C-alpha cells in the first residue's frame, strides 16, 4: 500500500485529506468523529477574537444545487465563523490535539485587521499545541461586511500586512486562505508569499444566490423572507478551483509555494487532480456535509490503489506533476489535429452527438447510414472540438484520435506535418514576431 502520509509546511498527517475550516470542524464532538473516521487533519472552524461570540441566523444557512438523481453538485452557506466562546474552542482544540497527536490540527483565524488583534490571539492559539494557523481571508458573506474575511483577501496589501504580523507573533506555520472572489488569483497569492506565508490554501467559497422561490418571489435560501448572498462550493466549483491552484503553481513569483487545495473535492480522483496541479494536501468540506465523514476511507483507499498501480511511493512524488501541462493559449500547437471517433459497439443511438453538432457546432456527425439510424463522424467537417465526447452519456463511446504526421486532414486537405507551431508565429496573427 502506498504511503499516504504527508508533511506540509512541517505539519505531519497520516494522509493528505484534511477537513476544511467549516461547519464539520466547529467543535470537539465533530472533530473527534472525523479523526475516528480517519481524516488526516482538520482545520478548526474559524475562531474570532475574545469577547461575545458572533451569532448566526436561525433560519436556513445552507442550500444545494442538485443534478439529476438528486445529487448535490453545488452548495451554498451563510454560516459565519464560530459562534462559541474563544476559550471553549481553545480548550477543545487542546484536548483533541492531545488525544490525536499524529493528526494535523490547524486553527483557522479571523480577527479585525489590526495588529493588536492578531498579536492577542496568536499566543493563545499556539498554546493549545495545534500544528499551525490558517488565516481566513476568504469568507465572502457576513464577516466581509465587517471588514474581515474576503474583504481582506480582496486587497493584496492587507494580505501581506496581516501575514507579516502573524509570522511575527507566532512560530507556527501560517497558511493563508484565499478568496476566489477576485479577478486575478495570482495577486493575493504573491502578497501572501511576500508577507512570509508558509503556504496558501484555496479556494474559499464563491459569492452566490442559489435561486428564487417563484411562488413567493423571494431569493433562496432566505431567512424570514430576506436573503443574503452566500458562499458557493461543492463539485461545481472544482474547475474554478483547479484553475486558481494551477495559476499559483505556475506563476514564477509563487512557484513552489506550498498549496493546500480546496474546492469540490468529493472523490480520490478529485484529490489526485488537485495534487497533480500543485497541492501538497487537500481540504474537503461539502462532500463530508453531503455524505458524512466515512468518505475519507474511500478517498484514502482510492488514492492508495491508484498510487500503487502507477508506482507512486508517496503523495509528495505526485505534487505538481501536471503543472507543466498548463500554458497560455498562444503556446498551443495549432498543427495538432484530432478527430472524434464513435465506437459503434458502444453507441446506444441516442443521437445527442448528432443534434448538438448539427445545431451548435460543425455539422460533423451524420444521423443515418443506408436509411437506418446510425451516428458517425464526418472527418471532412470535424474540427476536433470534443463537444460530442463531452455530452455523450456512454462512457468511452466517443473518443478523440490524433492524426499522425503524414496523415491528411480531410477537412483542410492538408497533410499533418508533425511540426509544432503556435499562434505567435501564425501568418494570421497581426502581432506575430
Amino acid at each position, binding site marked *: 500500500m502506498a504511503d499516504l502520509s504527508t508533511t506540509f509546511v512541517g505539519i505531519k498527517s497520516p494522509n493528505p485529506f484534511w477537513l476544511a475550516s467549516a461547519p464539520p470542524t466547529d467543535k470537539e464532538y465533530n472533530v473527534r468523529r472525523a479523526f475516528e473516521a480517519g481524516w488526516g487533519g482538520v482545520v478548526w472552524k474559524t475562531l474570532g477574537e475574545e469577547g461575545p461570540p458572533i451569532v448566526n441566523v436561525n433560519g436556513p444557512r445552507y442550500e444545494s444545487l442538485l443534478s*439529476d*438523481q*438528486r445529487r448535490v453538485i453545488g452548495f451554498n452557506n451563510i454560516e459565519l465563523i464560530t459562534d462559541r466562546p474563544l476559550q471553549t474552542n481553545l480548550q477543545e482544540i487542546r484536548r483533541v490535539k492531545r488525544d490525536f497527536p499524529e493528526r494535523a490540527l490547524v486553527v483557522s483565524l479571523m480577527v479585525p485587521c489590526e495588529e493588536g488583534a492578531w498579536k492577542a490571539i496568536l499566543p493563545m492559539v499556539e498554546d493549545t499545541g495545534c500544528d499551525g494557523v490558517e488565516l481566513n481571508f476568504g469568507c465572502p458573506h457576513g464577516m466581509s461586511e465587517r471588514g474581515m474575511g474576503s474583504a481582506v483577501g480582496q486587497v493584496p496589501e492587507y494580505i501581506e500586512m496581516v501575514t507579516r504580523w502573524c509570522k511575527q507573533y507566532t512560530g507556527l506555520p501560517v497558511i493563508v486562505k484565499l478568496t476566489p472572489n477576485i479577478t486575478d488569483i495570482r495577486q493575493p497569492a504573491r502578497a501572501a508569499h511576500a508577507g512570509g506565508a508558509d503556504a496558501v490554501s484555496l479556494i474559499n467559497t464563491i459569492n452566490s444566490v442559489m435561486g428564487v422561490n417563484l411562488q413567493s418571489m423571494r431569493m433562496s435560501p432566505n431567512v424570514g423572507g430576506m436573503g443574503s448572498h452566500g458562499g458557493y462550493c461543492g463539485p461545481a466549483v472544482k474547475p474554478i478551483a483547479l484553475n486558481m491552484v494551477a495559476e499559483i503553481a505556475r506563476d514564477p513569483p509563487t512557484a513552489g509555494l506550498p498549496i493546500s487545495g480546496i474546492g469540490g473535492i468529493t472523490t480520490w480522483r478529485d484529490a489526485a487532480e488537485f495534487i497533480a496541479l500543485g497541492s501538497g494536501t487537500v481540504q474537503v468540506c461539502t462532500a463530508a456535509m453531503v455524505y458524512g465523514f466515512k468518505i475519507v476511507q474511500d478517498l484514502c483507499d482510492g488514492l492508495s490503489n491508484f498510487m500503487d498501480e502507477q508506482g507512486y511511493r508517496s503523495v509528495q512524488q505526485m505534487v505538481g506533476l501536471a503543472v507543466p501541462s498548463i500554458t497560455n493559449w498562444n503556446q498551443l500547437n495549432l498543427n495538432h489535429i484530432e478527430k472524434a471517433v464513435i465506437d459503434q459497439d458502444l453507441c*446506444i*443511438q*441516442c*443521437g*445527442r452527438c*448528432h*443534434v448538438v453538432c448539427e445545431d451548435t457546432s460543425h455539422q460533423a456527425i451524420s*444521423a443515418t447510414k443506408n436509411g437506418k*439510424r446510425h451516428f458517425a463522424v464526418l472527418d471532412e467537417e470535424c474540427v476536433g472540438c470534443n463537444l460530442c465526447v463531452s455530452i455523450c*452519456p*456512454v462512457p468511452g463511446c466517443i473518443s478523440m484520435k490524433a492524426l499522425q504526421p503524414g496523415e491528411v486532414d480531410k477537412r483542410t486537405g492538408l497533410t499533418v506535418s508533425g511540426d509544432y507551431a503556435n499562434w505567435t508565429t501564425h501568418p494570421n496573427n497581426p502581432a506575430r514576431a
Partner: protein
Amino acid sequence: MSLPSTPSDVAAGRLSQAEYARNFADAHPPLTAVQALLEAERCYYCFDAPCTTACPTGIDIPTFIARIAQGNLRGAARTILEENVLGGMCARVCPTEVLCEQACVRCTQEDKPVEIGLLQRHATDAYFAQPGAPLFSRAAASGKRVAVVGAGPAGLACAHRLAMLGHAVTLFDDKPKLGGLNEYGLATYKTVDGFAQKEIRWLLSIGGIELRPKHSLGRDVFLDALARDHDAVFLGLGLAGVNTLGMAEPVDAAARAAVDFIAELRQAASPAEVAVGRRVVVIGGGMTAVDAAVQSRLLGAEDVTMVYRRGPEAMSASDYEQQWAQTNGVRIKHWAAPQQLLLADGRVRGVRFTRTALQGDRLVQTEDRFDIEADMVLSAIGQVFEAQPLGLSLELKGGRIATDAQGRTSHPKIWAGGDCRAGGRDLTVEAVQHGKVAAIAIDHQLRA
C-alpha cells in the same frame, strides 16, 4: 378421461371483500411524485427519439418526460394528449414493452428502459386530477357534419379531432356506455376507479360531439343513410364476432367467450358478483387470454391453465404479459389444441386436447391426447369483424375493411379505423392513431 367425481363448481363470492379489493386494485400502482421525478431524469432526451418512432401515435416522449422533470405536468399532459387523446388509457394498457420502452436507448446500455408508460400515466393523472383551463379548443364551425360509428378508441379519437377541427360530429354506439373495449374489454385491474368513463367525459368536454348510444349499425342506423346524410362517415366498429373453437358447440354457460367474461367483470358492481370456476381452462395465447386467465385467478379460481397451440414465442401476449400471468399463478401449457369439450349432465367438466407439433412450417395435430379438468372454459382464440351490419359493399381485406394509409375505404365518403380496419396489430394505441389520422384526412377532404 374419467370425469371428476366432485360436482361442477362455478360460483361467485369465493373471496372476502378484502381479498377482492386487493386483487382488483391497480395492478401497477402509479408513480409517486418523487419516483416520477427520478425516473424522468433518466431520460436522455434523444434526438429523433426511437421511443417516439415506436409509438403508434407518435407522442413526443422526450418532451413530455423533460416537462415532468421540470415540474411542468400540464405541459407534459398537453404533449401526450395532443397526439393521443386517450393517452391516459394508453398509459395503462399499452404493451409498452414491445413499443416505446422496447425502443428506449437505455435498453441497449443497461437493459432497463425509462418507464415511459408509468411516466405518461403520471402526467395524465395529474392533469385529469386538476384539468384547469381546457387544453384544446374548437376551430370555427365548418358547417360540415360527420358521423362516427363506434365509440371505442378509434371512434373517440376521430370524433375528438373532428370536433377540434370545427366539424359537427354525431357519435353512434350500440352499447349503453361509450368506450368500446376501453369500457368493456380491458382487464379490470388495468383501469380502476372508473377511469375509462372519466377520460371519455373529459374528451367529450371539447363540445361539438352529439351522442347516440344504444344505436346499432344495421338495426337502428344504416350506413347508406349515414353516408347520404353526412359529409363523411368514420367506422370504428371493432370486432363484434368471436372465433369458435370448432368443437361441438357447448350448451353450458360455463363454456363461453373470454371477452364476455371480461366484459361481465368490467360491468359488475363488484367482482364478488362474478362467477368463476374452481378450475378454469383458457384457450388462446393473446392479451385477452391473459386478462381472462389472470382475472379468473383473482376471482378465486384454484387452478387456471392457459392452453396455446404453439410455443411461447408465437404467443401474441408479450413476454411481459406471459410473466404477469405466471406471477398470478396461471399455468401456461403450449403445443396443444382443444379437441373436445367434456361434459357431464350438461355441465362442463373438462377439455380434451391434442398435442400439436411443427412439421416444417406447418402446425399438425399428433395422436397424443390429454384431458384437463375444468369447471369453466374460456375461449380467447381471436375475434372477427362482422361485415353484415355494413349493409353496403365495402372492399374487405382478410375479412376486415380495406383502407388506404389515411383510413379511407373503397367508398369515397367512408373512412374506417381501429380493429375493424385491415392490417393492424389490434392495439388501443393504434386505434387512436387510426381515428386521428382519418379525422385529419376527412378534414382535408371536406375543406378541399
